[in-house]
């Protein structure tokens, strides 16, 4: 049987992985499992990847996110441990006596080793319990609930306005490519992105609150406010945020659509005699979705976790301000909880963007 070493029995063993090398490669799973340890789980996972690459990819992405979150939690804890100064002295300031400092340190268990404190903190955090604030002795989860609500409220309205506006303006810019509307949109958005956000905030305050007196300032929101009062309070910060994030998303939409516009099938559509807007909306935009989704996700994350400066300028009680307050007095449980929640937001939104991009990819949606 020297003629057929390829079909020989020697190689049939463990050759299953070679049958469809392309799909295995795509999922990133090693093509050849070890035949000796070939556990049931491994085989099952390989079959699953082969049959449902989409679900497998998403599951993998989810697993990665959870792992990342754990790594981040360790980094947050380590980073805070490395900060100079400690809570007791910072909190009491010049009015502290060594006695009071000692009392606080013992009270908070700061004398325990850091690994022990990390584990007990993580154990609580997994169950949604972030402990009590050292400074105010209130439940961190409870306080964060309110602050996060405020932050999300602000971010939601900023996103509600900026995302459709950015995508719409991007499409508009493509349609009038290199003509006046395109140039105006570009110049304005570039100007907005070049100014630091606090400066935009101050400008808006100066014009709308101080000189014209039409806008509400400060944008402090509190429990007893009605919904309309809240909306009027957040008008200026929302306007600032919209200006800050608009350009980024708009320019990415424009670039991605333009990229697709040079492809062959758009040319076909043009030759078919379709209108420019129709081509952009029906044929180009859906294929430019992945990069746009990525940029939108990043900006959404920014709207939740990156708006500290805007919150401070407008005196808005959101998460950013909460974390800054906590950092200044070294209120560790609060800082850790904020850091972890911020990280979770980033990871979640990035993951959502990835998954949406995967779903938007027809080659993965319809495996052969």
């Amino acid at each position, binding site marked *: 049987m020297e003629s057929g070493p390829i079909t020989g029995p020697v190689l049939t063993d463990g050759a299953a992985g070679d049958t469809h090398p392309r799909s295995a490669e795509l999922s990133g799973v090693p093509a050849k499992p070890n035949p000796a340890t070939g556990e049931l789980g491994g085989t099952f996972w390989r079959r699953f990847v082969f049959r449902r690459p989409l679900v497998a990819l998403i599951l993998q992405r989810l697993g990665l996110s959870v792992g990342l979150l754990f790594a981040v939690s360790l980094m947050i804890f380590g980073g805070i441990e490395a*900060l*100079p*100064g*400690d809570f007791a*002295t*910072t*909190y*009491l*300031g*010049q*009015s502290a*006596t*060594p*006695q*009071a400092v000692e*009392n*606080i340190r013992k009270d908070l268990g700061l004398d325990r080793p850091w690994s022990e404190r990390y584990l007990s903190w993580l154990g609580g955090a997994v169950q949604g319990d972030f402990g009590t*604030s*050292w*400074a*105010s*002795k*209130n439940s961190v989860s409870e*306080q964060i609930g309110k*602050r996060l609500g405020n932050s999300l409220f602000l971010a939601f309205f900023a996103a509600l306005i900026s995302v459709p506006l950015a995508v719409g303006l991007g499409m508009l810019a493509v349609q009038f490519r290199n003509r006046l509307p395109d140039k105006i949109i570009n110049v304005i958005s570039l100007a907005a992105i070049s100014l630091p956000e606090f400066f935009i905030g*101050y400008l808006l*305050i*100066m014009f709308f*609150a*101080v000189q014209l*007196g039409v806008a509400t*300032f*400060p944008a*402090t929101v*509190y*429990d*007893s406010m009605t919904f309309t009062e809240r909306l009027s309070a957040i008008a200026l910060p929302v306007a600032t945020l919209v200006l800050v994030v608009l350009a980024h998303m708009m320019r990415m939409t424009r670039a991605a659509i333009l990229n697709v516009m040079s492809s062959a099938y758009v040319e076909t559509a043009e030759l078919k005699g379709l209108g420019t807007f129709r081509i952009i909306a029906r044929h180009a935009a859906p294929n430019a979705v992945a990069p746009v989704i990525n940029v939108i996700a990043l900006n959404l994350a920014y709207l939740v976790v990156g708006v500290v400066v805007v919150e*401070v*300028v*407008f*005196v808005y*009680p959101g998460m950013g*301000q*909460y974390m800054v*307050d*906590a950092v*200044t*007095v070294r*209120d560790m449980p*609060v800082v850790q909880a904020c850091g972890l929640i911020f990280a979770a937001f980033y990871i979640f939104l990035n993951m959502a963007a990835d998954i949406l991009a995967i779903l938007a990819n027809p080659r993965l949606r319809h495996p052969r």
Partner: protein
Amino acid sequence: MSDYKDYLTRQVMLGKMNRREFLGRAAALGIAASTANTLFATSAAAQEPKRGGHLKLGLEGAAATDSKDPAKALSQFLFVVVRTWGDLLVESHPTTGAPVPALAESWEPSADAATWTFTIRKGVKFHDGKELTVEDVVKTLQRHTDDKSESGALGVMKSIKEIKADGGKLVLTLTEGNADLPLLLSDYHLVIQPNGGMDNPDAMVGTGPYKVASFEPGVRATFERNQDDWRTDRGYVDSVELIAMNDATARIAALSSGQVHFINRIDPKTVSLLKRAPTVEILNTSGRGHYVFIMHCNTAPFDNNDLRMALKLAMDRETMVQRILGGYGKIGNDFPINDTYALFPEGIEQRVYDPDKAAFHYKKSGHSGPVLLRTSDVAFPGAVDAAVLYQESAKKAGIEIEVKREPGDGYWTNVWNAQPFCTSYWGGRPTQDQMYSTAYLSNADWNDTRFQREDFDKLLLQARSELDEAKRKDMYRTLAMMVRDEGGVILPMFNDFVNASTKQVKGYVHDIGNDMSNGYVATRVWLDA
């Protein structure tokens, strides 16, 4: 001229000037007597407080970590919050700094000033309707004296040995005599709470002019007038709202757009800009807070008094006050006391910038090479600029100062009270004794200049229990001279408290005790429609 007229009018409104004086000064301005008479009448009428209205204050210093417990009140924001709802046993007089009765009607020391008997006011009701008793007072003081407590007043209270009720009176026994005890009880943490706050320290129930309506840490606090207030000379507005505004520009924007009536902590650099707004009034008050350059007296090269003297003489105080404080302050004289303290030792010669004399002492000290000064912007506003200014003025005396900028994070732990030469500030204390005991007594916790002298300690303790004012004043003079001529502190300036309000706000009392009318701003002002 109109500025001066405004000033005169304000003096009348504050009750600081009588009719004769006013007419005389007005005549000097060329104002006709009949006009001046009307002006005086309107100014004097304006002194009559109006009731009603909603007062809004935008304040720096709030944080989400703020505590409701007065024992743990530390920020500027909480300072005002506590003053608005709570009362103390003793308050300090706004202009003389002497103790005045509050919830304690009167007091009596023993001959050695070691036992004090306080008569507690009757018929005062807490916000929850309960009547104030001596027991509540005893429990309050006990809570703040407990070693386990995290009270900010713990340092003040540790000299109290025994607290007990004797009939309707409160009797305090001290470990040693202290003539200043009543003033120590004016510490803002020592708010009298029902049962001393033992059951619920966070309840925010007191006997003050306003009841707490809502409190969101780091966001806002609202108050309603206490209809059963035991005093009639305060609490003029119906409701008060304190809004946390940690951003200086936000505060200024809120004030100039009329969204708030009062803001605190104005950067001297921006005062001249804010002054241009027609509706705004700048309120600056001399205070006890001071900015310092501290040297460790026991660490080389600062263990040499000639070098310390050289460094003191090389400081240009006038320029410091002008450049760093924008003129909103007074020059210092290298001891931590100014004329806002009772028993201030007058007539001590002002130390001035003298490069020649500085060079003489520097040469005598035998030191050579640069002197390392550590600083950071958290030490006090403009500290880095001040250090550079100092470097320049010292250069003229032939002294080389090397300025090292340290990170603000951890400055109070790693640099202040740890490194031999750095910049810092002190907030001032209610009494001279307390100021010296906190920072200049040999074994003081915060002896940040390592000033250790037995004769100083002995004299300070003697002065503490001395009830004869003249003798005491003399002792304080000696103490001041010791610190001034041999201490490790270079004290170029006392900073003013700079706040601002809209012109609607009337009756602001310039209280030397502390910032924001000693925290009583919300209870003392009224709104002129």
